[in-house]
C-alpha cells in the first residue's frame, strides 16, 4: 500500500474514531473516498481497529450499497420499482445490456466507461420508467430513447 493511501485511511480512521462511528459508517467513508471496498483496505482497518476482517465482510456483503469492484465512469441506474416494472423497466435493462455489450454476469463495460445498476425505487413514479445516468434523472424512458441518451456519454 502506498503512502498516500495509508494517509487517506489514517484520516478516515481518525475521523470515525472521533465520531464514535461504527463499521457501516467506516465503510461508507471508505467508499466515498476511494470508490469501492478493496481487500487491502479492509485488512488495514481490521488490524487498526482490532475487529476481525470477517466482520467487515459480513457488513460489506449484506448491504447493497457497498461495492467490491471498481465501477465505471458513468453509472446507469435503472429504477425497478413496481411502476417502472409495469411500464417496461425489464425491456430497458435488456436494451442497455445489448447496447453496452454486457454479458450476463457483467455489470461494468470493459473500457470502464459504464456500470449498469438497478435500484428498487427512486420514488419518481409519476414519470416512470425512470433511468438515472449519474445524477441526471431521465423520465418516461423507452428502449430507443435510452440508447440515444447513452450516446453522449460514449467517448
Amino acid at each position, binding site marked *: 500500500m502506498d503512502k498516500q493511501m495509508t494517509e487517506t485511511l489514517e484520516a478516515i480512521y481518525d475521523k470515525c474514531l472521533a465520531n464514535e462511528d461504527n463499521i457501516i459508517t467506516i465503510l461508507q467513508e471508505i467508499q466515498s473516498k476511494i470508490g469501492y471496498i478493496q481487500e487491502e483496505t479492509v485488512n488495514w482497518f481490521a488490524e487498526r481497529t482490532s475487529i476481525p476482517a470477517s466482520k467487515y465482510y459480513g457488513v460489506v456483503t449484506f448491504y447493497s450499497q457497498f461495492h467490491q469492484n471498481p465501477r465505471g465512469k458513468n453509472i446507469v441506474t435503472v429504477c425497478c420499482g413496481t411502476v417502472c416494472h409495469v411500464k417496461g423497466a425489464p425491456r430497458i435493462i435488456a436494451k442497455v445490456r445489448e447496447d453496452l455489450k454486457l454479458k450476463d454476469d457483467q455489470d461494468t463495460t470493459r473500457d470502464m466507461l459504464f456500470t449498469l445498476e438497478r435500484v428498487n425505487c427512486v420514488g419518481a413514479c409519476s*414519470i416512470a420508467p425512470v433511468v438515472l445516468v449519474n445524477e441526471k434523472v431521465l423520465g418516461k424512458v423507452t428502449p430507443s430513447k435510452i440508447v440515444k441518451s447513452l450516446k453522449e456519454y460514449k467517448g
Partner: protein
Amino acid sequence: MSGEIVVNVCMGTGGIAAGGDLVMEEFSKQFEAAGIQNATVKEKCRLHKVGCRGFCARDVLVDITVDGEVSTYQYIQPEMVSRLIQDHVIGAKPVKEWLVGDDYHTFHDNQTKIVLGDLGKIDPESIDEYLQVDGYKAAEKALTTMTPAQVIQTVKDSMLRGRGGGGFPTGIKWGFCAANKSDQYYIICNADEGDPGAFMDRSVVEGNPHAVIEGMIIGAYAIGASIGYVYIRAEYPLAVDRLHLALKAAKERGYLGEKLFGTDFNFKIKVKLGAGAFVCGEETALIASIEGERGMPRAKPPFPANKGLWGKPTIINNVETLANLPHILNKGAAWYASIGSEKSKGTKVIALTGKIRNTGLIEIPMGMPLKEIIFNIGGGIEGDKLFKAVQTGGPSGGCIPQQHIDLPVDYEGLASVGSMMGSGGMVVLDETDCMVNISKFFLEFTQSESCGKCVPCRIGTKRLLEILTRITEGDGKEGDIELLLELAEDVRDSSLCGLGMSAPNPVISTIKYFRHEYEAHIKNKKCPAKVCNKLLTFFIREDMCVGCGMCAKACPVNAIAGEKKLAHKIDNHLCIQCGSCFDACKFSAVLKE
C-alpha cells in the same frame, strides 16, 4: 405585504426530475434582468421553492400569486418562463392556456390534508417559514404545559396508529416504553422507505422536515429520550440534505440541544444513512443496522420498547406518524379522532401511481372507498384501458380486484381482502398487466431482500420464485397452484419477521382473485395480458409492414427475413420471443399473441 407577488416552484424529487431546478434558475435569472427595468418586480417579487404538492404527473407546477390571487400552471418548462413573467407577473394577466384544468381541483378538493397541509406552501429549507405556520408550537406546548404522561394520554386518545405498515397504536407503544426503568431511552425515526412504488416519507422529509423533527421532540419528551436517530435511505439524497439543513437550523434556534423551551429537557438528533437493505425497515433489523451490524431481525419479544438500541428501551416511529404529532398536540386528540373510520383514525398519505391519469401524492381520510381514490382523485385509468386491480402495501401487500372496488381504505378494510395498508403505496394496474408476472416481480424483490437468517423466508421465497418463473416461461405443471398456496402459507406462518410473513401475500392474493390467469399460463400456455414473452407468438402484419428492416436488425437470432420495402416475416422456429422486434417497429406492425 400588499401587492406582493409570489412565485412558487415545485422542487421535490418529482419536480426536479421534470426540470424544476431549471425552471427555478430561469425565473431567478429573468427576475434579475427584469428587476433592473421594472420596479414592481424588483420590490415585490418573491421566488420561492416549495416541496411536493402531490400532483407529480403535471410537473413542473408553478404557482403565481398576485394580490392573494393564486394561479397554478402545469407542465412548465424553462422556455415558458419569460412569457409567464411578461404576461402575468408584469402584465397581471394569467396565461390561460397553461393553467391547470378542473381535474387539478378535483384531485385536491377530495383530499383531507394534515401531514401534507404545508407541503407545497412553505420552503422546506427555511425554518422561519415553518415557524410562520405555528411550527414548534406543539413541542413548546407539550414541554412547558404537559407532563410526559399527559402527552402519552393525548396520543392514546387520538387513536393514532403507526403509519409504517403495522398499524400499532402509537400512544400504547409509547406507554410500554415509558413504563421501563432505565438510565437511557431512545427514539428513532424510521425513514428507510424501501417499498417499491412508495415515496410518502421521502416527500414529507423533503417538503417539511421540521414537522418530523418536532414530532420527534414530542415523542422524546413523552418517553424521556435524550437522544434520537433518523434512519434514512441513502438513495434519497435531497431528503438527506434538507434534513441536515433543518437539524442545523433547529439547533441554532434552540429547538434541539440543551434546556429546550427553558425546561430541563435535553434532546439531540443524529442521522444514520441506510446502506441499502429493505429488511432494515423492520424494527429489530433497523436497530442492528444503527449498531453497525448486519441488518438482521431477531425474534420478538423482547420488543424494542423494552429492549431496543444497545439494550435500552427504544421507540421507533415512522416519518408520517411523527409528522402527525404536532397537529394532534395543537388541535387536540378529539379533533384527530373525529377524522377517519371507526378503528382507523386520521388520514393516510398515499403514493398513487401506475396506470392512472393523476399520479401523485395524496392524503385521504381513513375509510375512503377505493373507488373514490382511483376514479375521483386519480381521474381513472390512463388511456382507454380497463381497470384490473390495485396493488397496495408494496411487496408485503396484495392485489385488490374490481369486485372490491367499494372497499374502505383503512387498516381493517385492506386486511379483510388479504392485502394491507403497508406504508401507503398504491399501484393501479390495467388490463395489460399480467398478474402472474406481478406476483413474480414482488417475489423477486422479497427473495433478493431476504436477509437469509431464517429458513422459511430464505428458501421458501426462492422456491416460490422458481415455481412462478416456471409458470411464466410456459413450463407450469398441473398442481403448481396448489403447491404455491401450500408453500406460501408455510412461509407466512413460520418466518421470523414481517418480511417473510408478508412476502407470500402477493402470491396468495393474486391466486385468490386471478386464478384463471394462472390456469391460462399453466394449462393453455397462454398469457392473457400478453406480457410473458415466452408464451407469445410474434408475427408481422403484412399490410402494416413497410419493410424498413428495423426488426430484422434488432433480432438477435436472425429470425426475421424480407426484402427491403417489402413485408418481412418472422421464422417462429428460430424466434426466442425476446420482444426486440416489437420494440424496434415504429409502425406497430409486429404483433404478439
